[in-house]
């Protein structure tokens, strides 16, 4: 699914998008690459797009649970996030599609 332009997301931050019926948090890492995971923290519903990130993880702003952006796995004992495939098309727009299960 095609979302807004990639420069809607400042470097090192995340923004939330509706993808179908789901909310997806898309992050633009400081190394320029993109990551997309489910936008809601499974612990207590925290908005992950508001979390701080580095090139590996996002920290939920509410209770500081940590999730790997590539695998979706939590390093603080929470259920994993859903990981989405994200890339930029020729017009500089974000395109997000759910990962097919076999790739997970």
């Amino acid at each position, binding site marked *: 699914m095609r979302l807004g332009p990639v420069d809607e*997301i400042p470097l090192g931050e995340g923004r939330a998008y509706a993808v179908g019926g789901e909310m997806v948090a898309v992050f633009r890492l400081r190394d320029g690459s993109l990551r997309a995971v489910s*936008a809601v923290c499974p612990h207590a519903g925290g*908005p992950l797009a508001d979390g701080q990130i580095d090139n590996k993880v996002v920290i939920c*702003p509410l209770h500081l649970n940590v999730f790997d952006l590539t695998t979706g796995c939590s390093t603080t004992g929470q259920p994993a996030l859903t990981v989405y495939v994200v890339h930029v098309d020729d017009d500089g727009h974000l395109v997000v599609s759910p990962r097919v299960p076999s790739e997970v």
Partner: protein
Amino acid sequence: MERLVVIGNGMAGARTVEEILERGGGEHFAITMFGDEPYGNYNRIMLSNVLAGVEDEAGIFLNDLTWYADNNITLHAGRRITRIDKHAKRVYADDGTGTPYDKLIIATGSRAFVPPIPGIHRPGRGYHQGVFPFRTLDDTRNMIRYAREHERAVVIGGGLLGLEAARGLQNHLSHVTLVHADGHLMNTQLDAQAGAILQCSVEKLGIEVVTSAITTEILGKHSVTGVKLKDGRTIPCDVVVVAAGIRANSHVAETSGLVVERGIVVDDQMRCQDEPDIYAVGECAQHRGETYGLVAPLWDQARVLADHITGKDPDAAYHGSRVATKLKVAGVDVAAMGLKEPERDDDETLVFSEPKKGVYKSVIIRGGRLVGATLVGDVKKVAFLMQAFDRGLALPEERAELMFDLGGPPLEVSAAELADDAQVCNCNGVTKGTIAACVHDGCKTVSGVMDKTRAGKGCGTCKGLVTQIVEWAAGGAVEEDPKASWYVPGVPMPKPELMAAIRQYELTSVSAVFAKLAPGGEEDAKSKMGLASLLKMMWGDEYVDERDARFINDRVHANIQRDGTFSVVPQMKGGVTTPAQLKRIAEVAEKHAVPMVKLTGGQRIDLLGIPKENLPKIWADLDMPSGWAYGKSFRTVKTCVGSDFCRFGVGDSTALGIAIEERYQGIEGPGKMKLAVTGCPRNCAEAYVKDLGVVAIDGGKWEIYVGGAAGAHVRKGDLLATVDSPDEVITLAGRFLQYYRENGNWLERTYAFVPRIGIERIREIVVEDTDGIAGDLDAAMDSSVAAYRDPWKERSAPVTPGQFRTSLPLTVLPQVPVREGAS
């Protein structure tokens, strides 16, 4: 099957056999036990309870005779072993029978020491009538029977056993005198002062105590009529109980050719010297020059012996026990461990004594570790002290915490005592079991366990207990987390080094710090916020503000709430407002249907439940500056009405509070800074418990307190200085805050920072300027103040794309309920 013979059926013998059976020893050994006393095995420690009538005899038996049968143990109760033939490997009993063994355990314990006082024995007929030792169940029975028919008892010996005997005897006769040879009671465990306080408490119970009293004679022709002391005094009595200590029962071993000094000499495997097949355990054994008369070392010895003899762990070794005791002695709580008095000049000693209440506490510290402690009358802290003593734990900076609970939840329960399902972290609901499991899964650092379990990651007050549990679970194999000394986890440097490096390489942005100083140039999400704060403090206007380094609160200048909305607190300096301001806030709240309007603890008005995207509109409608209720920064100055209206006020606290807030608003730091100014020592603004609190006192003076807290941690601030004018308050406040900003660890509040540095040292730097850096501190603070911008001005144009775009899901998540009465 090998033949295992155990001489002694007391606590040591039976416990050792239990340990051997637990290790499957029942299949390797045919076990035979010899006991002096014609019973199963009983808990000797409880004899004083039997004497005191609080326990009946049946209640003190540990293993009754069926236990021996069930475990195929041949018990010869009431048969005394008189000789060991170690060459033929046989033991001989007093009835002449011989029993062969392959392995032999000697657990003969000890006997009452009866000093050779004239008149204590009747030639050829045992003790004089009315004289009793206090050691066995039979002693106790005889003593009770005799005492019931008599009036006055003298107990010889003011140690543990003597005190227990005296207290117990009160149950059976009307008058008890305790005669003790040393200058104070329990002199083995207690110093003179503690002994004196214990004596007072014991005397209050109606026991007469005579110290420095050597008994020279037991009087009475047919039965006891009194005791005579060395100073000539005579104490009339008809019962004498001898509790003058114990001696190891090593006679059989000695006459059989084993090496015996004060006890039977054993090695680290509890084997007798030069005897590969003979062990000794318990009070009869002497290990590395020590004999023990308490039960805890016995348990340790029994385990090692069992490990070794069964081959379960051939390398098991006993290294001696650190003796710590906690008892109720004659109704008085007493705990003693390690040294009773300091030994070296540089031993640190703390003593608290309150004789009127019968309370005495002393603590001896060497090289930062607890090496001795004595508690009489109040043993609330004993669990923590015992653990600190036993494991050599780090001690609290505030040494008084070793003796008292100074606010905050007490660390009374030791990690070992806690139940597995006991909740340790009350913020995140983490149990002891979860923490222990995490350690057993291989995580051996305190911070690692905290990360994984989230224990201690809430208000942080349970960190001490979490640390203890990790240490307990790791069995002393806790690994130091090197990150603990770093300012942030992602850059391996403590704060002073980090600041020096930042200056040296002129690193003005968070990404530059990672690139230059982090291992592999890796950025670290957890470190960003702390670095952003530090760089802003150091560089002011030159700081390159990368917004991703900020926490969400600092990106949108509001405090995120559990439902992902935000709270808006407009500035209201000193907590003083106007009708016009209130009207405007009311109108904004109505216009935006704000779900809750709430007064804060810092005397501000909080508008809660604001969606992120509405923040700029609300700020515009309010047209008030930010109240900074979201940052690790200068927050509020709480004030009382002061001299303007209050009839008690001696200083204009509101004016000063407003002036301080005006100047230092929004200054970022390692942690929140909450201040207060109060107009008189009645302290209505709670200035004593603020990061910095100012109290007006009579004569136009102002006191400045620092390092106070009244949150999860409660601490009264330390008096930094008393000054003559509001201007001096403002200068010193700024200088102290700057010193804290430059030296505080990330998220270290002043209540931890001030005690860490020490108030005297802080006073030297901030007030007396002994280091000559006051000018620099003032200048740095000046430039921070000059660089201040009201963040709510960012409302007209977002600083980053989508700065205020919602991150909330389409479906509504658990929402904070709107209360009735709130608009």
